[in-house]
């Protein structure tokens, strides 16, 4: 039977070994893992069985887990770095524009806004497409997110599409429809298709409601405003059809 100092030493070493896990993982599961190890030690001691081979196996098994989780962590970190690099490269365009093109003058807040939007869109795109191995789905996600990005950019940087009017608040609502829809669908193709159709419908309703409440944008022409909204809705419909087609082909 194992001696008390050996048991204490094993527990201490195991706690030290757990420090090698990536920090977020350790903070989430470290305590539970330590408790489980202690429970298993207690079980062995109560059964009057030796601890040495057991401890050796536990250390080996946990070390394999540490390697696996660290590799996963590095891959996630890598994708964040990739998105950040992509964002930086795209932002070089307006930066060069500022330097070399007359009349091109982006202020610092525009860079911050564009950077935040691009980085956010990229961070959303990366994990979503990792779960999808179909190229059509990936394109559909890219198209849907790209459309959402342009819509947000037009509203925040260029100015409200519907003029200076609270009706512009309907656009975050449209994006929310897609966001909630994607969560409910759990990114499954058929559900994603429905979520995107719902988004397109919400987008098509925006100019109708805006016209009823009298948003100032219609002063420049009703057709142009409806046309712009129809364009956005059409892009989401294309994305929805890609998801639908993919899900039908899989059956």
């Amino acid at each position: 039977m194992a001696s008390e100092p050996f048991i204490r030493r094993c527990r201490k070493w195991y706690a030290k070994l757990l420090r090698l896990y990536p920090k977020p993982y350790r903070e989430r599961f470290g305590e539970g893992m330590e408790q489980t190890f202690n429970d298993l030690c207690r079980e062995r001691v109560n059964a009057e069985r030796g601890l040495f081979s057991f401890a050796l196996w536990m250390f080996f098994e946990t070390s394999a887990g540490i390697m696996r989780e660290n590799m996963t962590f590095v891959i996630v970190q890598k994708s964040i770095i990739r998105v950040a690099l992509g964002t930086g490269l795209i932002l070089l365009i307006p930066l060069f524009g500022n330097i070399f093109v007359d009349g091109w003058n982006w202020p610092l807040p525009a860079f911050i806004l564009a950077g935040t939007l691009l980085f956010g869109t990229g961070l959303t795109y990366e994990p979503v497409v990792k779960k999808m191995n179909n190229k059509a789905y990936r394109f559909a996600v890219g198209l849907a997110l790209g459309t959402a990005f342009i819509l947000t950019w037009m509203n925040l940087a260029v100015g409200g599409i519907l003029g200076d009017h609270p009706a512009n608040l309907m656009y975050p609502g449209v994006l929310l429809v897609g966001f909630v829809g994607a969560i409910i669908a759990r990114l499954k193709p058929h559900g994603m298709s429905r979520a995107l159709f719902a988004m397109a419908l919400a987008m098509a309703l925006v100019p109708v409601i805006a016209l009823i409440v009298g948003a100032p944008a219609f002063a420049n022409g009703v057709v142009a405003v409806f046309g712009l909204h129809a364009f956005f809705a059409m892009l989401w419909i294309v994305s929805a059809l890609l998801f639908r087609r993919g899900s039908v082909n899989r059956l």
Partner: protein
Amino acid sequence: MLHILLALSTQERHGYGIMKEVESDSQGKVKMGPGTLYGSIGRMIEAGLIRESDKRVDPEMDDERRVYYKITALGQATLAAELERYREVVAVAKKKQLAPNSFAYGI
């Protein structure tokens, strides 16, 4: 993962509880260490199959508070689908009159 879902299908359990239930369900054939168990738990939480429940004391053990894990509706549906798949495979094997030791002598 199937063993963990099976262990959680009847009640919430903490890490050690899951480990013991898996061992008992598999008649000692499946033994997991904390590294494998918590790695699987992390991935299953991410996939929405299980979720963390409240932290509480297990009256049958010590007075330490432990995180319990609970199967979600998606986890239950996944378990049911997977068990159905196994049933179908076994049915096919039975239809072909295959016994567990059919290939034991390279027949």
